[in-house]
């Protein structure tokens, strides 16, 4: 959690990072930029906003690339259970991470990394809220039966764990995507504060279960 302290959100921008509606966020961003003209991170925030919400093929179409990549990472994780798909999965996760603003933030050093962390937390909040509001997410048996609250919490904890530590470990990206994994983890615990038991359960199962990290695969630099 020390890193968490290092990644304290700048006071003036807390409303920007707590808002999940893209249009409202843009309004806050524009207002904040006018109020703080000397803030050197404003261009990065604009760049991340564009990267996240703009559809390059159709400027009128509002998307959320980060949210999509959350679901995409989970899909890759689930499909890469066997070795046959693991290398492909690693390649795919690296490609996904290249679209998530790491290169945009790289030029701003530690402050850029902090902004990225908060952008990921915002995306994670939107993701977890979507999960909790989605009826189909809380269904089982071909959508016929509804899950109990503890089952939903467990599923959410599973998703959060796979998105952060699970994917990072399986695909050998623990250091490279730290702002992402930390953001997902922190946001999950801010939504479900008493889920540490579930989280640790997943981590333990991962350690004792089938191997996840394929040793011998060389780590590529970003």
């Amino acid at each position, binding site marked *: 959690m020390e890193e968490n302290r290092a990644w304290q959100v700048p006071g003036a921008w807390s409303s920007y990072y707590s808002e999940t509606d893209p249009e409202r966020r843009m309004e806050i961003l524009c207002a904040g930029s006018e109020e703080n003209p000397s803030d050197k991170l404003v261009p990065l925030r604009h760049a991340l906003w564009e990267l996240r919400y703009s559809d390059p093929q159709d400027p009128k179409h509002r998307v959320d690339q980060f949210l999509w990549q959350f679901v995409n990472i989970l899909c890759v994780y689930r499909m890469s259970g066997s070795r046959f798909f693991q290398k492909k999965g690693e390649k795919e996760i690296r490609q996904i991470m290249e679209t998530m603003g790491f290169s945009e933030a790289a030029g701003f050093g530690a402050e850029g990394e902090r902004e990225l962390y908060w952008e990921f937390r915002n995306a994670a909040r939107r993701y977890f809220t979507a999960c909790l509001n989605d009826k189909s997410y809380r269904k089982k048996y071909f*959508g016929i039966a509804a899950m109990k609250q503890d089952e939903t919490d467990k599923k959410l904890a599973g998703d959060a764990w796979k998105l952060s530590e699970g994917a990072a470990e399986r695909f050998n990206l623990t250091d490279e995507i730290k702002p992402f994994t930390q953001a997902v983890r922190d946001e999950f615990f801010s939504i479900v504060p008493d889920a540490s038991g579930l989280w640790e359960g997943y981590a333990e199962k991962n350690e004792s279960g089938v191997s996840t990290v394929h040793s011998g695969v060389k780590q590529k630099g970003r």
Partner: protein
Amino acid sequence: MKKFKNLKFVRAIGFNRVVLICVIFLLYLLFAVLTPVLHGGASFVKVERIFSAMNYAYFLGFLALGVTFVISTGGIDFSIGPVMFASALISGYCLTQYHAPLWLCLIISLIVGSLFGLLNGYFVAYRFLPSFVTSLASIEIAKGIGSVFTKTQSVTWPTAGSENSWYKNLVRAGNVPTGLILLIIAAVICGIVLNKTKAGRYMLCIGSNKEAVRLSGVNTKKWEMIAYVICGLLAGCAAIFYVGAYTTVQPGLGDNFNNDAIAACVMGGTSMAGGVASILGTVIGTMIMSLMQEGILAMGFTISYQYVISGIIVLIAVTADTLSRKRKV
């Protein structure tokens, strides 16, 4: 067990699939031993038995491949069997009563299946009806349309050797199991669609978290409906393989194949909660179900026993799926 799980070939194919392949061999062995004992010296180890099991596997395989797409989106289609029969009845009736060209009748079969898929998909994706309710309604519609169209008469497609019987080559051309080749080709195409295309990724992600996918800008309604259309199209294909193997179709039937197809699919590793699907697993599951069906008949039990056993298999497969997901990370 842990050592076995970490063996190179087990990790390459996946533990579940290795287990399923072992189940096929064990079942074959079991039937080979039990058939002579229970059925007065009859033998299970015959080429004809394999071909007979394959006949069942072809159409069941297409049904199971189709329903894999729907289950991957988190839904279900219980109407695939009756839709298959409706497709076979309507196209067969066009062939025998209206003397439509055979190629056109085969296309009609695909169109009928796709239309049912479109109907199910529309009501699930655009009208937000639960998929099981929609597909239960579709069962009745499919059975009804099949009966009305054929005036409750069974339809017999051209038999081998008669005019217009070339469609039988789709199942077996001499000693060449063309049905198996076509099923493998279909499975490869389905695997590519599901694992390598944007459409497949959208379907899997919809099954995983529909609301998040919608918020990220994807037209979830369209892709969910497409999954049902693919399922319907493959039910239309299954109809062709069904008549290719069995020639005659009766109205008002087909429900029993839903269970087998869904069991094959879930057994193969497709999650009932959506978001995870395995085409290879579905194909292996299909082979197991077909072998079971052939083995039960070979041992001298009636078809009713097969219904009991396939029901039990569905229960086991579903329970195993639930337990494995509870354990899995």
